[in-house]
């Protein structure tokens, strides 16, 4: 029988990277992501893989992009201040269609902020932190096993779509230890970039396959707008290239939607949550159920591209009367939810920014309040009925 193991979030992330075949890691230590770097520093050389501690985060992102073009599966991990420094590199990775994984364990910001306090306030930065329209995939996780799986998935998406993939963790999840079943080799799917049919036929950009530099064809990798061969593009050609780049990701939104739907048929309230806040939401659903109020939970693991269709589907049928979006910021994902559900159901926000988690009680209370006096009296009637 498989044994459960006690594993920390950051450890699951590092081990997920190793499981996915990461063979080049470059990074710079920062709370609360440091354990990822420490584990990689220990494990990578042991396994014949490359680990480099760089002088800063700008160098770290540059190193993983360069190594990706040398054919490696690459990864770095950081937190807010380092993630900000990486933005220029992320844009470069996006326009050069470079597969790489960037982990951001969120902490309270902006700036140095509160290094040991948690947050989910880098959500919009993860999507839009670098300038210009650009494709990017953003994933998250709510538990330790989940962190392992989503790290592997981040590599898979990077490899399949040739795009930088950002995995958002947070201080609490990074340091949380839980008992998990350790994924066996072969248990999780691992995807590797496909080689082109031949080096000669290879177009370095905008197409299929990946040929590393030195793989048998000379080409230019540039941050300038470029055509499929890497030559500078302008005007309509640049526009077409950008549109195609965006479509490659956004056209696959539902294919890469990772989520869990826990919505009872008679639920009138839907909680849309992501990351560590899911845990409070799940408990809140239990607390409310004990009081006779049925709520459902939609947990999003893929945040960008945002699975709008999934959200619309979740409220279809008219049973859902209200939606609550709890998050550890002053309102980021909720903007997307409000936009998509506009005019259909009321969407309420619950934000917390003191560096601590939203509690199950806070979510339950927000829902009771949102449900209004009728739900409150119904709840009391049911509770009275249950005790009589």
């Amino acid at each position, binding site marked *: 029988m498989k044994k*459960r193991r*006690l594993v920390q979030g950051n450890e699951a992330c590092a081990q997920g990277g190793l499981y996915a075949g990461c063979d080049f890691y470059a990074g710079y230590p920062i709370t609360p992501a440091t354990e990822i770097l420490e584990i990689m520093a220990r494990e990578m050389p042991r396994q014949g893989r490359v680990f480099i501690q760089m002088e800063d985060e700008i160098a770290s992102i540059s190193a993983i992009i360069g190594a990706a073009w040398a054919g490696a599966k690459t990864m770095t991990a950081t937190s807010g201040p380092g993630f900000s420094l990486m933005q220029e590199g992320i844009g470069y990775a996006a326009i050069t269609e470079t597969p790489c994984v960037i982990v951001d364990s969120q902490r309270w910001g902006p700036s140095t902020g509160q290094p*040991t306090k948690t947050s989910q306030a880098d959500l919009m930065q993860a999507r839009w932190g670098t300038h210009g329209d650009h494709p990017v995939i953003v994933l998250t996780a709510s538990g330790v096993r989940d962190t392992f799986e989503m790290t592997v998935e981040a590599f898979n998406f990077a490899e399949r779509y040739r795009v930088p993939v950002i995995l958002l963790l947070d201080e*609490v999840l990074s340091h949380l230890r839980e*008992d998990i079943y350790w994924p066996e080799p072969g248990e999780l799917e691992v995807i590797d970039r496909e080689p082109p049919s031949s080096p000669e036929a290879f177009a370095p950009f905008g197409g299929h396959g990946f040929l590393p530099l030195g793989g048998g064809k000379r080409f230019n990798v540039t941050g300038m707008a470029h055509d499929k061969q890497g030559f500078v593009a302008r005007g309509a050609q640049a526009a077409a290239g950008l549109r195609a780049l965006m479509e490659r990701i956004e056209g696959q939104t539902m294919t890469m939607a990772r989520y869990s739907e826990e919505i009872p048929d008679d639920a009138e309230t839907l909680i849309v949550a992501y990351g560590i806040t899911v845990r409070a939401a799940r408990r809140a659903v239990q607390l409310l159920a004990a009081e006779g109020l049925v709520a459902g939970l939609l947990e999003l693991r893929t945040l960008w591209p945002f699975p709008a269709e999934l959200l619309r589907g979740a409220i279809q049928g008219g049973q859902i009367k209200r939606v609550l979006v709890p998050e550890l910021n002053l309102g980021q994902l909720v903007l997307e939810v409000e936009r998509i559900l506009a005019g259909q159901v009321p969407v309420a926000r619950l934000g917390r920014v003191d560096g601590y988690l939203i*509690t199950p009680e806070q979510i339950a209370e927000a829902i009771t309040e949102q449900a209004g006096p009728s739900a409150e009296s119904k709840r009391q009637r049911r509770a009275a009925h249950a005790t009589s």
Partner: protein
Amino acid sequence: MLPQDPYQLRLSGSGGQGLITVGVILAEAGLLEGYRVAQTQSYGPEARLGASRSEVILSSRPIAYPEVSEPDFLLSISQDAFDKYGSQMPEKSLILVDDFYVTLSRSESYPQQIYALPIIHTAEELGNKLVSNVVALGALNRLLGLVSEAHLKEAVLRRVPAKYRELNASALEAGARLGRPQAKAVG
């Protein structure tokens, strides 16, 4: 058998006193015992001397929310930690403090059951104050009966370097002696 299921513990002290390690060991012992476990931590920007806490939940069922919401037990081995967390404890809970480093306010009467034991002194007698955390672990497990002594010892030995195994095993035993049923509650 857990005194409560799930059972929620808050372990507090100053940064550097090894409270996070105690949490990890207890979680691991809980896992050996067959429980579902979650261990979290909270600490300030300073690596040492700030109040630091580590929390453990042991449960026979999957744990939805991994942080402690209503602690059943508090360990405090520094005054700062007790001042910060003691007042947050529910009435029907149990508190274990170091009898020398934590002074209970005379003017206050505590509804909780409080044990004051010579945790740090016991570690000093073993020749190393650094094992105070393991002494506390032995004491709290004997007081609460959370996991078997064998599982606790196994979990301790997994987490300590080979050259300190004997010292830590002694610390665990000494702690267990402190926490024996004859130990008297002061509160």
